[in-house]
């Protein structure tokens, strides 16, 4: 399949100065048994979006089709099962974090019998009214001896992946580390803190869950010293590598700081070869678990964008604004044709600008706030994009049961944001 949502590669590279993908190296992988092509540097999510894949899974209870929402470890929907053979099966992999490699095989975990035709989906659509919260507690409690029948059916219907039923042959290692300062996250904040601490002579560990350092700077078009963010990142990392070669600093990529335990004991889950291949070579470590005792900890974990809750907000095509910027700037993927942005702060405007600059249409920016004239809103207006103030998307609509979002219902709100009045409808494919 063609990568219909990929920004053409012959576009001048300066617009995508921070892009981290390499078009010269196509990578083939399969999703739900079908072959796709991405490029080096893609995550499964960015490659799927590039290929125009909307539905990556099914929801747990109602079986509704679900698409990619985020571009990071917070992804709730694109949870995949990975592995080319029984021994290498890995459940619970977030498509937004896993890089593609040649020959990668992955499957949706919540689509039984298949993502397209889903028994639970029909069940969910018909009986959703009868599945209130606490449904499992209420309905399946009695009679207790029936639970074994319910359980089988519920588990099969739900499913967030399965564990492999053959022994994993790969090698995993645990290693103990000690640091004066452990820094979690290597975005602008983490990199700066690492430099500050290292120059003071401290023993530092810098861990980041992404495949490269830079954090949100990697998805940003902002300029530092009039140059693209990449130059700043490279300069900082170069100095840090110098400290690393002296044994004073440990840089960890693909490494999620997962647990913060008593007395500054932290655990880091480093995925050494998961982004490269299905199975590690002999005597090569696939994943490493660092048990760290740190004297000081700096959390430079950044912030997560909070989605707004509205009707049908789960339809494929509804994404976080920050994710849209990331896919465009970092992966050169525009996940749709026409965009409606709803926002309660200024960050939504950046997504609109990125989308517009990538050459596709922004239908409107819907701002829940009162009319204002921030710098960003001026820029957006200058690009000819409509801004609708004090309004909200109250509902997303679709055409068919399994299709992605096709339009947004917009209403203006009262000043408290508690009620709505008037209806307006806009067509879009990404929200």
């Amino acid at each position: 399949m063609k990568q219909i949502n990929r920004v053409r590669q012959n576009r001048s590279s300066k617009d995508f100065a921070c892009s981290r993908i390499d078009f010269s190296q196509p990578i083939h992988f399969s999703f739900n048994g079908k072959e796709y092509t991405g490029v080096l540097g893609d995550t499964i999510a960015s490659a799927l979006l590039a290929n125009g894949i909307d539905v990556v899974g099914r929801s747990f209870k109602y079986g509704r089709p679900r698409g990619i929402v985020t571009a990071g470890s917070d992804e709730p929907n694109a949870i995949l099962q990975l592995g080319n053979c029984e021994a290498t099966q890995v459940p619970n992999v977030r498509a937004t974090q896993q890089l593609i490699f040649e020959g990668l095989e992955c499957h949706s975990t919540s689509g039984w019998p298949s993502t397209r035709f889903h028994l639970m989906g029909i069940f969910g659509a018909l009986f959703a009214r009868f599945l209130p919260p606490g449904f499992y507690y209420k309905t399946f409690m009695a009679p207790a001896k029936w639970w074994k029948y319910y359980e089988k059916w519920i588990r099969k219907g739900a499913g967030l992946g399965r564990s492999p039923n053959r022994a994993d042959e790969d090698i995993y290692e645990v290693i103990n580390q000690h640091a004066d300062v452990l820094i979690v996250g290597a975005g602008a904040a983490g990199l700066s803190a690492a430099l500050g601490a290292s120059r003071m002579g401290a023993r530092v560990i810098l861990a980041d869950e992404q495949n490269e350092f830079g954090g949100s700077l990697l998805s940003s078009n902002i300029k530092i010293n009039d140059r693209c963010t990449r130059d700043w990142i490279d300069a900082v990392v170069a100095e840090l590598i110098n400290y690393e070669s002296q044994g004073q600093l440990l840089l960890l990529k693909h490494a999620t700081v997962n647990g913060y335990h008593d007395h500054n004991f932290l655990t880091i889950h480093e995925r050494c070869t998961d982004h490269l291949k299905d199975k590690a070579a002999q005597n090569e470590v696939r994943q490493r678990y660092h048990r760290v005792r740190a004297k000081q900890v700096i959390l430079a974990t950044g912030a997560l964008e909070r989605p707004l809750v509205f009707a049908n907000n789960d339809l494929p095509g509804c994404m976080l604004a920050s994710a849209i910027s990331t896919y465009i700037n970092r992966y050169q993927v525009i996940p749709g044709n026409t965009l409606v942005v709803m926002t309660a702060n200024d960050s939504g405007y950046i997504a609109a600008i990125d989308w517009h600059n990538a050459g596709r249409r922004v239908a409107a920016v819907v701002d829940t706030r009162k009319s204002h004239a921030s710098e960003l809103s001026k820029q957006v207006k200058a690009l000819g994009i409509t801004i609708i103030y004090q309004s909200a998307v109250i509902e997303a609509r679709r055409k068919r049961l399994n299709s992605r979002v096709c339009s947004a219902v917009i209403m203006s709100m009262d000043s408290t944001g508690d009620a709505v009045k008037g209806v307006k409808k806009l067509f879009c494919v990404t929200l």
Partner: protein
Amino acid sequence: MFLIHCPICNEPRSEDEFHCAGEGHIQRPLDPMATSDKEWGDYLFFRSNPRGTYRELWQHTIGCRKYFYIKRNTETYQIYKTYKLDDKSERVALDKEHSNKNKFGDLL
């Protein structure tokens, strides 16, 4: 995982080198055979298990093998201090705690 300062080795060590031996400062009755079943039961089985400050006896099992006391918070897991069995200054502090406790009788 605790980081415990061994007062004998005089440096912090990881919890897995240690072994907790339960509540500290529990005195064996000098003449056990003279105790009533209730007194003996109190000594043998009953522990204060408070929420908050607690003194425990620990052994640096994989290390110097010496026993020592830890004064710590059972809620926050903060360790206030560790001290040797014969630490006289703590003895005084402890007696004060006990006398305060006695004022409130069985309520505590």
